[in-house]
């Protein structure tokens, strides 16, 4: 019900829709009744304090966690996502907050893990994988060279580049990005934003979690604010100011619900 | 036989302890063929027995042998399990004396607690017989590894001498089980010492010059450690063979049948079987098969462990009759040869006859217990 109240950019069934999602860990209610939708070619930002439940929410969509209650629809059809393979089958790719890299493997191996290019005898086609990985990674991070070293030895930015590149490469329809720019330098962040624009123009939907309010405003069409596992609200980026969104994060109230005093406290 | 009183024992430890008895391989499953007359008594004798451990075929058979012999004699019998554990052993000892039996048979696996056991039994004024591991102040029943080793050498060496072998072209390979302690390894030590005395040209040594860390004895002796087990003995002998010229004669002997079988396998693999004479200890089915079919396997020591029960009950009866046994009452033990093996063991490896009593054990005859079983040479009637 809540989702229908939220403004949407275009009409037609959303690319992905999560309805009334609940998830707790033991006694902790990490996500309580959150609904969110992403249209094709749309970027939705998710913001909120540490521990607000952002990662938990998107991990349900990427198949890392099983929700306790709620429903997920892809292109209007209800689907069940029981594991990460299911999500990938629905075209949902994820850049995890911790990047989910294998430190002992090199960039190419990390890039293709689970989807290795192989010969018909089941042996690895390392040359083909390296070619593909190099092209995509260099587009995101031109200074990236050490494709053949274990990623343990790489910088945070380089590691993030690998995680981004591999999510992008496999023809995702929806990209989930949990803090994608946290470890990137200015130049890489700029390249990343360009990448987002290009993917958008290709009709790919994106869910972006970020602590950087400026980045969120730069990239998102809509912004969902979460606090203490609940959804404070979702607004079209064009309809709100950064201050209003900050207010939602801090106060856990919609701008119209907050009193003058509340907002006065912010300054 | 040593134990630090640990709560649980590993497989390897158990093996070591089995070895410590001088026989890892149970001889046969035969229990006593009870065809004797049933003894009747108005006031039955009461015997309590604490077994060292109730796992492992050997110990169970030993315990069953004692139990069956006691029942055959019409004695009241109670059985406890020491679980190879010192505290359990002491607790059992206290339970047993509470019951006030006439005599206690104690098979204690933890040598260090002998004094504590003695105090419990002495305080209660109950006589006791220690099985295998001595307890100070008590009567003692055990095998004598030293004699087995000596007797085996006395069978093996004359055959080698008859072949014209001497210390110049012969090496004795003995497989010890160092972790099992000195007494157990007496068999291989005395085997070598006796062989050196009776074969020309062998390096002579005193028994205590062969210790757990001895590896070579002049040019005529090699001691390896087989841990009482098949695989370890196989590997150890394999390595030792590298140091011996291919045409050298070998006398092979070990602490138990598994070790001898492993060593023998290494010898046949190296194609040296025709230059080797071998002897086993334990009377296991596999070793008896070798003794019967393998011309190089000339002797097999047996201690008839499954039949200790009837001797122990005889001993207990003697003690209750006021007889003072010798410091050590020897179990039946015999060196089997291809000529006499069929007399004592049937084709399945079951004991059909026990060797005659040695003079020191004549006092057992007087109890009349052994006669009930009708299976001891010289006491069949």
């Amino acid at each position: 019900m809540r989702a229908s109240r939220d403004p949407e950019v275009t009409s037609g069934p959303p690319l992905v829709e999560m309805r009334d999602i609940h998830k707790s860990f033991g006694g902790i209610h990490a996500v309580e009744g959150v609904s969110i939708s992403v249209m094709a070619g749309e970027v939705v930002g998710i913001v909120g304090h540490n521990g607000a439940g952002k990662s938990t929410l998107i991990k349900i969509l990427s198949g890392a966690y099983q929700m306790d209650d709620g429903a997920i629809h892809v292109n209007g059809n209800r689907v069940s996502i029981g594991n990460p393979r299911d999500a990938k089958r629905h075209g949902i790719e994820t850049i995890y907050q911790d990047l989910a890299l294998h430190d002992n493997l090199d960039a190419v191996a990390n890039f293709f893990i689970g989807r290795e290019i192989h010969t018909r005898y089941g042996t690895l086609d390392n040359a083909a994988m390296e070619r593909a990985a190099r092209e995509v990674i260099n587009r995101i991070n031109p200074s990236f060279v050490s494709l053949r070293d274990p990623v343990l030895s790489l910088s945070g930015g380089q590691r993030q580049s690998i995680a981004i590149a591999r999510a992008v490469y496999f023809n995702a329809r929806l990209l989930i990005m949990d803090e994608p720019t946290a470890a990137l330098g200015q130049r890489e962040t700029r390249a990343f934003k360009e990448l987002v624009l290009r993917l958008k123009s290709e009709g790919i939907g994106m869910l972006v979690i970020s602590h950087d309010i400026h980045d969120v405003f730069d990239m998102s069409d809509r912004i969902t604010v979460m606090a203490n596992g609940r959804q404070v609200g979702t607004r079209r980026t064009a309809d709100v100011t950064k201050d209003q969104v900050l207010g939602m994060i801090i106060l856990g109230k919609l701008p119209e619900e907050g009193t003058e005093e509340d907002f006065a406290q912010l300054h | 036989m040593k134990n630090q009183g640990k709560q649980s024992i590993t497989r390897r430890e158990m093996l070591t302890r089995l070895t410590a008895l001088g026989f890892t391989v149970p001889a046969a499953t035969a229990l006593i063929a009870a065809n004797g007359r049933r003894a009747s008594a108005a006031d039955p004798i009461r015997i309590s027995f604490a077994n060292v451990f109730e796992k492992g075929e050997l110990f169970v058979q030993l315990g069953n042998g004692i139990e069956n012999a006691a029942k055959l004699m019409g004695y009241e019998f109670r059985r406890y399990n020491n679980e190879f554990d010192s505290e359990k052993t002491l607790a059992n000892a206290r339970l047993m004396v509470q019951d006030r039996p006439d005599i206690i048979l104690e098979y204690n696996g933890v040598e260090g607690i002998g004094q504590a056991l003695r105090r419990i039994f002495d305080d209660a004024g109950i006589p006791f017989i220690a099985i295998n591991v001595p307890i100070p102040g008590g009567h003692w029943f055990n095998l004598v590894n030293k004699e087995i080793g000596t007797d085996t050498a006395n069978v093996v060496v004359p055959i080698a001498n008859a072949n014209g072998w001497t210390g110049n072209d012969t090496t004795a390979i003995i497989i010890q089980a160092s972790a099992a302690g000195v007494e157990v390894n007496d068999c291989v030590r005395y085997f070598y010492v006796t062989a050196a005395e009776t074969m020309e040209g062998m390096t002579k040594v005193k028994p205590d010059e062969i210790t757990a860390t001895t590896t070579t004895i002049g040019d005529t002796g090699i001691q390896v450690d087989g841990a009482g087990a098949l695989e370890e003995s196989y590997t150890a002998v394999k390595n030792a063979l590298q140091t011996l010229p291919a045409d050298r004669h070998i006398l092979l002997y070990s602490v138990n049948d598994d070790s001898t079988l492993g060593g023998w396998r290494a010898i046949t693999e190296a194609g040296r079987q025709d230059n080797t004479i071998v002897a086993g200890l334990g009377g296991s089915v596999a070793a008896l098969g070798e003794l019967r079919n393998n011309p190089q396997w000339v002797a097999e020591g047996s201690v008839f462990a499954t039949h200790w029960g009837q001797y122990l009950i005889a001993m207990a009866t003697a003690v209750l009759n006021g007889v003072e046994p010798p410091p050590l009452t020897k179990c039946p033990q015999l060196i089997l040869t291809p000529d006499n093996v069929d007399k004592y063991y049937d084709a399945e490896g079951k004991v059909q006859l026990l060797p005659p009593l040695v003079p020191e054990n004549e006092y057992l005859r007087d109890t009349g217990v052994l006669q009930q079983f009708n299976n001891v040479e010289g006491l069949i009637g």
Partner: protein
Amino acid sequence: MSSPAETFSGPRDSESVKSRWHSTRAQFFGIGAFYIAVVVFFTLTSDYFFSYSNALNILTNVTVIGIVALGQTLAIVSGGFDLSVSGVVPLGAVTFVIFSNAEMATPAAMLFAMLVGAAVGVFNGLIVTKVGINPLIATLGTLSITAGLAYALSNGVTIPMKNIDAGVLAERTWGRVPYYVVTLIGLSLIMWFAMRFTVIGRRIYAIGGNREASRLAGLRVDEITIAIYATCAGLAAFAGVVVSSQLLAGSATVGADAALTSIASVILGGAALFGGVGGVGGTLLGVLVLGTIANGMALLMVPAFYQQIATGVILLLAVGFGRLRAVISG
């Protein structure tokens, strides 16, 4: 795992980290050099060491543990351990001889023994993945169960092989090299190839490197883990078949050292205790180092007590030295 919040663009302490990784390769070559030193030492000190016949002797001595160590490599590289091999080796040995003595054809008896082993491995894998018990504890439990089973099946006695032809692996030779040594070499080549060049090999390293990331990447982590434990135990059971072929008898006492020696060999060969790093080449080198030292000391007539002590010291030195290098160069 470092979270991006703590890391920033640009090289972090990448030099030391890089050298930590390279240290495993350095350790491989270090152990290789160490092996050469061992060979030289024993050649100089023993008249019997450096000969074709003793080389063959060493090879035959290490085959059983080599086969076990191949499986252990899989378990350790994937981030686990398999202690149960010490029970599965005797279980495989005893079942092989029992079935062979029951007139089962030799290949069928071998296959059956390996299937029994693989079944134990599947059980290991299930309790590690589905029940979530730590591999050390889980396989310690099955070690006890399988060792006990081997004792129960054999009644604790050595069972001679009735049909000597069943010992084909040891009885037949290629030149003077017994079939089982050839088998070890064949198995090693297959596993080396699989781990280096195939998709499944890559995934085993991935799982050992980061189990959760592997799951998120869509790998069937549980299934692969179960398959690894099944392979490891199947190989251990096959090692039991080889021991029985060597001894022409089955005994529950064989293989008691298999778990410790195989793990020591794998680690000596440069594998990481926590998974993700290691390989067949290093493992075989580790097996050879331990086997050669044991053989050399036996030839030098070192008493068994001291052999045991020396082996432990050498193991610590070799592994410690590799780690020390890493610390110094880092």
